[in-house]
């Protein structure tokens, strides 16, 4: 092709067309209003995004319910809607305890619909040496304002992925996300069936029994079975929730297994679930941190923390996570899940060595390449230099 001969509408018209854009452009800009554009926050999309993922929420405790001496439920009430969520998600709370600044996460027990009415419920179980749970149980009173972040978490029902029948295995206070799911099913906000296998030591330790019984009796999509490990009582299954119990109560057809509970339950199920020969996609565990790495004598280390260009040196122990050292020293990082999953606390390990428990390294490929860590699941193995911001 002879390049010189190419034209769209003839050489003259093409040239005029090109020249035209000078005037077109002038008119285009000049005919617009000289007012400020719409604020980003005022677009409907951005409003919804902010509503579901607020930077933080100030929650006022409206009511406290005691579950004998095992646990307490805290109810929060707000004049306006609280951040909407999916049943199964958790809230992360921020605490200042002494010099420490810490965050802890609790699954939301209330239904998603109640958040739109300005209500949340969480349940805190009494445990031995629970630094934060003790603080809550002793200090949180009606009328207190506490700080929570937006709901997070991935143990939620998705009909595109999960079977329409959910077999939920709950241990102890691991019941709360499934209470939320049961309520959501009952309110018509989730369209799945729920077979809840709820493991406790004794019948005294069952939380929310009357509500669960009522949901189970009145809604054909919900079936609750209590499994007691430490007592033999009539009307209850005896033992631990394992493959046999699951097989006995699982509905016909395909089902997904959701698990939430203490570490002992996870360990037991790891050996039990393979017996069911289910594909990995049908088994979902709420992520869990195995905690202290070993019984070895802890070694003291120091961490040099770089925050907005300012360095400080803090103490750390090989038996506690890097995040824990930050928390003790009152150094705030945006931690949420405490299990390595969410990645909020991602920081740069400038130098030093850390141990990450097997199966808890949920970092991105490039983060491993460039030595970024999730401090919530890293234990120091030397003095460290960490850039948090």
């Amino acid at each position, binding site marked *: 092709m002879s390049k010189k001969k190419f034209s769209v509408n003839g050489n003259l018209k093409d040239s005029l067309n*090109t020249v035209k854009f000078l005037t077109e452009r002038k008119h285009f800009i000049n005919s617009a209003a000289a007012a400020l554009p719409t604020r980003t926050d005022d677009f409907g*999309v951005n409003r919804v995004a902010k509503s579901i993922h607020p930077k933080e929420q100030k929650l006022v405790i409206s009511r406290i319910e005691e579950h004998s001496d095992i646990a307490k439920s805290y109810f929060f009430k707000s004049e306006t809607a609280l951040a909407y969520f999916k049943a199964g998600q958790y809230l992360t709370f921020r605490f200042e305890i002494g010099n420490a600044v810490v965050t802890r996460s609790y699954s939301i027990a209330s239904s998603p619909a109640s958040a739109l009415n300005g209500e949340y419920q969480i349940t805190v179980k009494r445990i031995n040496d629970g630094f934060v749970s003790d603080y809550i149980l002793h200090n949180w009173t009606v009328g207190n304002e506490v700080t929570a972040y937006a709901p997070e978490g991935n143990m939620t029902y998705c009909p595109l992925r999960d079977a329409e029948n959910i077999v939920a295995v709950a241990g102890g206070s691991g019941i709360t996300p499934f209470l939320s799911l049961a309520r959501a099913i009952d309110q018509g906000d989730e369209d799945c069936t729920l077979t809840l296998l709820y493991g406790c030591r004794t019948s005294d330790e069952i939380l929310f029994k009357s509500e669960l019984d009522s949901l189970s009796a009145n809604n054909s999509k919900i079936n609750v079975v209590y499994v007691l490990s430490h007592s033999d009582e009539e009307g209850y299954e005896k033992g631990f929730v394992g493959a046999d119990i699951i097989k006995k109560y699982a509905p016909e057809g395909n089902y997904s297994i959701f698990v939430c509970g203490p570490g002992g339950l996870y360990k037991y199920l790891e050996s039990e679930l393979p017996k069911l020969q289910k594909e990995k996609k049908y088994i979902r565990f709420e992520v869990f941190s195995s905690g202290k790495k070993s019984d070895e004598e802890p070694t003291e280390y120091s961490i040099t923390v770089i925050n907005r260009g300012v360095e400080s040196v803090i103490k750390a122990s090989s038996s506690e996570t890097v995040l824990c050292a930050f928390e003790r020293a009152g150094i705030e990082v945006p931690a949420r899940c405490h299990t390595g999953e969410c990645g909020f606390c991602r920081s740069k390990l400038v130098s030093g060595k850390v141990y990450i428990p097997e199966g808890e390294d949920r970092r*991105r490929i490039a983060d491993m390449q*460039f030595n970024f860590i999730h401090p919530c699941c890293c234990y120091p193995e030397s003095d460290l230099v960490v850039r948090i911001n």
Partner: protein
Amino acid sequence: MVKNYDAVVIGAGNGGLVASARLAKEGKKTLLIERHNLPGGFATSFVRGRFEFEASLHELCGIGSITGKSPLQKIFQEVGAADKIEWIALDEAYRLITLDKNEKCDYSMPLGKDAFIAKLEEYDPGSAPVVTKIFDLIESIEKTLDFVSNIEDFKPSMIKEIFSEHTEFLKVANYSVDEVLKAFGTSQKTRDILNGYWCYLGQPTDELNAIHYFTMLHSYLIDGAVIPKGRSHQISTALLEAFTENGGEAWFNTSVKKIIIKNGSATGVILDDGTQINAKAVICNASPYNAYTKLIDENAVPDKLKKEVNAKTLGAKGFAVFLGLNRSAEELGLDNHTYFIYPTNDNRKCYELSKKIETNDVQATVCLNKAFDDCSPEGTSILYMTSIFAGDEWSKVSVKDYYKTKLAFAEKMINNFEKATGISIRDYIEEIEISTPMTYARYTDAPAGTIYGYEASKEDGIVKRIVFDMIDKGIPGLYFAGGYTTRHMGYSPSYTTGDMAAKAAILAMEKEAK
């Protein structure tokens, strides 16, 4: 607290990262501020179960795997990031399928000029001569752009050279893709296939500027495309590492509250904790919407800039479904890397239909395993589907309807994919994540969840922007980088404008020093 820097960069998106890396490389004391805990903005990744998903990148052009023409690689090398990124070259352009059964459209196109022309000839016998001419035009336009962008010292004689040597460029500068392709006497089928990439720019080809589209065809089809092995997060982190290695400081989880304007010039920023940062240059990787309505006092924004924002239309809003599948690509029959699935080849109609959630059926889907199989564990695969919305329909979705609406649209995309390809994926979904315009708004503060900056409309096509819109927007000391500037949205354009902003700032600093 008051701190002094040569330059402060607002936002660690693609534009902000390159600008920062360039400034640090040139010895400027630079502070990069990012409100999230991660660099990258849209250019990031996330882990679900045993899968790491790419958040937004389909293919990167500007790293010419075929011709070696790599303007981006040049930037990455110069700022010290290139050797930190592992590129994987792609050999496939796209497979184009339409849902309209009457069209019987299913074309698989390769990258590489000769391969592309040969394949098109197979689908549309007799097309090769005219398509070759079109590629000649595309290459001639590229030469003009190279000539213009390599001008370092402008001489009046160059204008003469442009008018005598670069006539093709001048002829088509204000025409649409369709106008030019029709002038070549192309068949409808040839145009359908050549226009496959339209969704990457989000504008129908009856108004999309020809030079804009042809430049993109050049960088993909002729030069070749790549992806980074560590997802786009690898590019973002590599740029950040290069920046800090060269003495730059990056503060994450930190927000800018105000851009300080003194006597009409930008002189620094105020941070969320009240810290004042003084700087000779402020590079803004935030959108002009945020800059003018949040960061700068209204009376300090010149009318010209307000008019500019109001004249333009926000570009496409994004939606994506990320799937971790528990079967390999081979087992499922996923043979292609990039699938363009449209309701029809009439891209004007696609665009109009994409204004409503109920009628939008546009999707661009990537199977990452076709680029490199070890991107996911053995026996699994990763598929991610992206759609674009014209208009602002998602702003009508309430909080209460949000989860249902996003689930329903994701399901439609999966169904459309299965229908178009005949491949079953629904039963193999082990992990799923869905992002909506709200997700993009959440993570990038994009107005209305826009992923394409301003629309590349007839009035605001790329040539007009390059000629009329300046990196320096009219507030001395303030430079914009990223998707709302002269090169439209996208990885390659944002990296490029980031570099341009840094260079403009450096030039101004040097002038000031003299």
